[in-house]
């Protein structure tokens, strides 16, 4: 994490993820929520479920309604229509019961800067029954803030505040942890640590709801994802399903590039021009004269044989899955994404 030199890395919890697939119970259920603020419709239609033990990604560009939706999940904003249930309790009608099992950080981890980290945790511990000093010690150890926990928060770096925010969210042993853009402001090392940490939490059976405008983050961290744009959920599914929906590419490299291209065209393979595909540059850059084709994976063997028969040497054939970006662009019709 950024500029934290004196704090140890987030410590992944060691319990394995054994129960993830056999718990279909819904921790969070969002049904058709709408929200208008000052007569303007911000959220048109948002529905999704978060199951126990899964890491759920919430992906959308800035201004798509992500933060507004998250605020509705934790009772900061009341929806105009629709219902949100956490653990079977309606968040707005029974906030005490529903929020008991939720830990969250909305936007930045804002804690009281004039108090020490410890005093902040005491403060939030007093707000729910049954959280004693032992639990505070525990969460401090989990986020690795033991050294600085009695210093005033105003002396903390952003990364340390992030840890303190997470410690605060973990206090009540939540079943659902909601993190809003958790990687914002973190350096690559911090992001990696956080990712491992989140996985280990999920491994313990906790559900995580993570919002981001970064595809790579969601793709790396999440089991399932909902994509939101213009106040509407465009798609919900596992990351694999969504990727499959997007179709995939096959990248060819021949020793005689032009002959190879002709062969593929004769065989009826759709070739994609360089500026039309959405493959990350990093994948194609080291390749010499790659040819990107869109074709069923099953035909690769057949085409390789044909090429060998006519004497065209094959340097490599590579099956490349698209990023979510392409999928996303298709769904959101060209909205920019970070």
């Amino acid at each position, binding site marked *: 994490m950024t500029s934290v030199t004196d704090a140890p890395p987030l410590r992944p919890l060691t319990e394995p993820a054994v129960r993830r697939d056999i718990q279909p119970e819904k921790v969070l259920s969002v049904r058709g929520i709408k929200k208008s*603020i000052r007569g303007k419709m911000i959220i048109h239609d948002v529905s999704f479920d978060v199951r126990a033990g899964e890491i759920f990604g919430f992906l959308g560009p800035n201004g798509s309604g992500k933060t507004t939706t998250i*605020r509705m999940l*934790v*009772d*900061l*904003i*009341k929806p105009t229509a629709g219902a949100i249930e956490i653990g079977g309790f309606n968040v707005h009608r029974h*906030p*005490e*019961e*529903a*929020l*008991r099992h*939720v830990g*969250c950080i*909305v*936007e*930045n981890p*804002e*804690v*009281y*800067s*004039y*108090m020490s980290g410890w*005093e902040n945790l005491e*403060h*939030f511990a*007093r*707000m*729910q*029954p049954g959280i004693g000093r032992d639990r505070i010690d525990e969460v401090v150890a989990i986020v690795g803030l033991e050294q600085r926990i009695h210093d005033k928060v105003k002396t903390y770096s952003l990364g340390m505040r992030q840890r303190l925010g997470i410690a*605060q969210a973990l206090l*009540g042993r939540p079943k659902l942890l909601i993190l809003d853009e958790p990687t914002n402001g973190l350096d690559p090392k911090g992001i990696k640590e956080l990712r491992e940490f989140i996985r280990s939490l999920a491994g313990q059976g906790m559900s995580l709801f993570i919002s981001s405008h970064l595809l790579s983050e969601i793709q790396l961290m999440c089991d399932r994802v909902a994509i939101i744009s213009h106040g509407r959920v465009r798609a919900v599914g596992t990351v694999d399903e969504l990727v499959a929906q997007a179709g995939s590419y096959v990248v060819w490299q021949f020793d005689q590039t032009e002959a190879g291209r002709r062969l593929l065209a004769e065989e009826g393979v759709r070739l994609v021009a360089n500026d039309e595909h959405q493959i990350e540059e990093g994948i194609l850059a080291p390749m010499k004269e790659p040819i990107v084709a869109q074709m069923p994976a099953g035909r690769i063997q057949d085409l390789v044989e044909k090429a060998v028969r006519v004497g065209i040497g094959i340097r490599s054939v590579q099956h490349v899955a698209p990023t979510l970006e392409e999928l996303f662009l298709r769904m959101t019709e060209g909205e920019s994404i970070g």
Partner: protein
Amino acid sequence: MDRLLPLVQNETLKIWRKKRFYVVVLVLIILIPIFTYAQMRISQTNAQNFKDWRNQVMNQINDYQSTLASDSVPEEWKRYRRIAVQQLQYYLDRDVNPSTPDAITFTRGFMSGSVTLFYPLLVLAIASDLVSGERTTGTIKMLLTRPVRRWKILLSKILAMMLYVSLIVVTSFVLCYLISGVFFGYEGWDAPVFTGFDVSGAQVDSTNVHAIPQWQYMIMQGGLIWFSSMTVALLALMVSVLLRGTAASIVTMMAAVITGTILGNMASSWESAKYFFSVNLDLTMYMNGSPPPIAGMSLPFSLTVLAIWAAISIVVSFLVFTKQDILN
């Protein structure tokens, strides 16, 4: 209800750690010596000019009577002066010094003189920040996403605010007594004070006048100051719920309080001004027998007006706070 106490503890500790109360104490420690010094100079001059307090009171009475004889003094002032003369005469006739030179008397005067402006200011330092402060720093998002109903959060803030209002009143007394005692001596607890003057008419009606030892008078006066300060605090809370910014809340409230002081000084002809809360803040005037600024004002009247303003503030604060969307 058992979950409320930890919440009050939270709010109390937050105010303490935000050093709001230190600011209040600091302001008192700076201001009280200034007033003490000013009062000491006055006392020294009086000691030079007058053989004892009776001469001084007689001189004061004579000064007032001279303005009564003047044609250029407005009738309203004359009424105040006439009442003051009759009260001073009441003290003189019973050979009771109306202002013994000691720390308790000074403190009594300081507190009763501070009730319209100074106490509201001190109270605002704490109350205006309670909700808007959490909004500005964004901590309100943490606070309201805990499994606690919003009305409990607000109630705990109000209770903590009440505790600090009490602390402000008592601390100001203690500091004022300790500091002024260095110059005036730590006496005066038993000195009698007359209360019960009825000044609603042109003449003072002293039927109900009785003497109270000064220590008891101080507690009663403190109670009245507490009540008006609580009203200011509750209004400030409402304003800070509605306006969202601490600075805007303080400015709005100070404007309202100062307006009341000005109206009290000049609005005797505009009777409806008496329904404005800040015109009624000085409840101590009913104890020391000063005539109210507007005809028709009495202790029950002022208490009712303040209570209604306070009740409206509470209702509005709760309605808005429990319903409003946290967007920023």
